[in-house]
């Protein structure tokens, strides 16, 4: 009796948990929040002097908002990625090195794939983005990992370009009311 009673309940419970648990993990991520670049421990940021990364998860969608500043000039751009499927993004934000003639191609669409890995502590983003260069247009493959570090107070962004011989490494610190 017990068995016959328990099995269906356990089955439904496990199905329910299977549906809800991933949603719960997407509902709020420890990666959510405002992160401020630690310039002293990061690759040199050319041109920009400040960079806040604001991450918000909304189901399978992750908004990567970049608040950039150089002197009094402020610029905000957001790229939204979806961890369920790849997408075509019109205004994919790449932290442009201010002093290189590499521009987002006019009207270009960037193919973006994203996934949570390492037990949802790393967001992997892969992008194929068209770049305007002096010789015309070229595709740049960008591989990024947003890694949440132990303690959830630090975020590491490693960015690799198909065209660059070394990765760009940026460290962020969580902005909290205390700091």
């Amino acid at each position, binding site marked *: 009796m017990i068995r016959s009673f328990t099995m269906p309940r356990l089955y439904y419970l496990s199905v329910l948990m299977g549906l809800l648990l991933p949603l719960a993990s997407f509902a709020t991520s420890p990666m959510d929040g405002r992160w401020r670049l630690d310039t002293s421990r990061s*690759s*040199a940021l*050319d*041109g*920009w002097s400040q960079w806040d990364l604001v991450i918000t998860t909304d189901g399978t969608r992750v908004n990567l908002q970049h608040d*950039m500043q*150089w*002197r009094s*000039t402020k*610029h905000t751009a957001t790229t939204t990625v979806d961890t369920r499927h790849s997408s075509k993004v019109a205004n994919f934000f790449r932290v*442009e*090195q*201010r*002093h*290189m*003639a*590499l*521009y987002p191609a*006019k009207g270009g669409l960037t193919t973006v794939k994203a996934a949570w890995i390492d037990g949802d502590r790393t967001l992997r983003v892969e992008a194929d983005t068209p*770049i*305007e*260069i*002096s*010789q*015309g247009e*070229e595709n*740049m493959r960008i591989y990024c990992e947003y890694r949440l570090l132990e303690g959830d107070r630090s975020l590491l962004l490693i960015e690799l*370009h198909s*065209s*660059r*011989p*070394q990765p760009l490494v940026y460290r962020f610190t969580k902005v909290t009311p205390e700091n």
Partner: protein
Amino acid sequence: MRRLIPFILLTVCVALPAAEPARSAFVMRWNLDWNVAGGLPEKAMLLSLQGLANRKSPQFYVIHPPEYQWEITAPLYSFYERKHGVRFTELKTAKAALNQFSNAARGYVVWDPAVAATMNVAFTIAGLEDALVVTPALISTAESHGLKKIDDLRGRYDGKTDAEIYGDAARRYWARCNHDAFMLMGGHAGAVRMPGMADWGVRQRMFFSDLSANPKHAAELALAQKLLSQLNDGATVFGWHSYGKDTEEQWTTLLSGYGLKMEGLHNLPNLSFNCQFTFTPGFKFTNNHHTTPGEKLVAGPKVYLSFVQSDSIGIGVWTKPGRGKLPFAWQVTMNWTKFSPAALEYFHESATPNDYFIGGLSGPGYMYPNHIPAAKFPGLMKEARTLMAELDEQALEIMDNSAADGNVGNADLTKETVDRYYAAFPDVIGFINGYGPARTRDLRDTRPMISYDYYIDPRRPRSEVAADLNELIALNSKRPYFLLVHVRESNDVNSLVEVVKQLDGPVEVVPLDVFLKLAASRKTYTTRYQDPDDPKHFEGYRK
């Protein structure tokens, strides 16, 4: 008759042309203390004294420490000794300077350090009334040298805005001021101010201000527009914008709209002295050309890289270690043929075979060509051609940052502007464009127009510079690839030698004239002008 001889001699001396070099002069060595609460008041007084002392002949020169933004004051001092036979006597103190030159002043004008704009008003009065500018603390110093008060600005402008202060000054003095020149005495603002160019403004009786070109400061902007519109054709705005009010881009856009030229910076020293020397007898500019007129070069399957420095050769790289180890193009401030010929001669004299001079910036002075009125463009560029011919220069550098600011906006030329340059400079070997990177590119007959693909910030780690350049080389995969690099002031060439060693691929560093000739031979770059859809940080001004 004997009694007449001294008079005749005096008359002859006074009648000598201003360009005749003096054989004796005085020099002071200054420190770097420009604090309003420290060394500024005395320096401001001495700058007004310098302008007055140098009115009739070059008498008073200042040497700044090597850390001062203009590093050439000491080398140029030696040049005057060596090439012009000037025998300098050192003045150790302000008192000694006043002992020597106070008779050049008729009195003094008092400014109030608590009301910043009064310093500029005092400089204006100094030029018109032959006055020293003093703070209250320096009144006794001036009076101890027999000088009487001409004006006192204390209290006159308390509680007034800068627009009100300069508006009042314009009503009082503008009509009597020089209308061929305007002194934008801005730059450092706040606790430190550095009016190193004030001697020049006082000597030439200019109107001083740090009026804002920022549209947020509507009243100041309106006054600036009014005054600029009343300057004579061909006039020059000397100095620099206020770091506390607006941007270089805003002021340069503003003055370009009136067809005026900018000559900076606010701390450029000794023009009142330098302007009175001509080139030494027999001197002729001879550039280090690496190609001959009409010579055709053919580019191979390589990356051709060329370095240019354009922040005025008086600043930065020229005096840094390693110059001469790499081919380098230097944008010459062409107007210095009028204001500072000895400095230009010094640069040419000390050039290595790898140093190549080019004209700029955009014309006979610093201007943004997208905003130069079409009717004024040909006349200005005729002046630029004349200066380039005198300086034996065959390439012109153009810059228009009117729509740019940091990462935002663009530094490109409209097609109309490009058309105008090609029409105005039929004999150049080519044009280069930008400051940071830009995208304007063209090739007409044998004259390419190439924009910078990279800008080297001196603070950027050299490993990242090498990585940046390698990334550009990887993405621009057609060969030849023409990689034009702007080297910001205060980089040093030795570090660039190391960067070049880290570059991937068949890279050849070539002089700019060779670069342009090669770029004319194989066009692997696109033709592009400012796209109306390109982001603009600033649209410009309505007159």
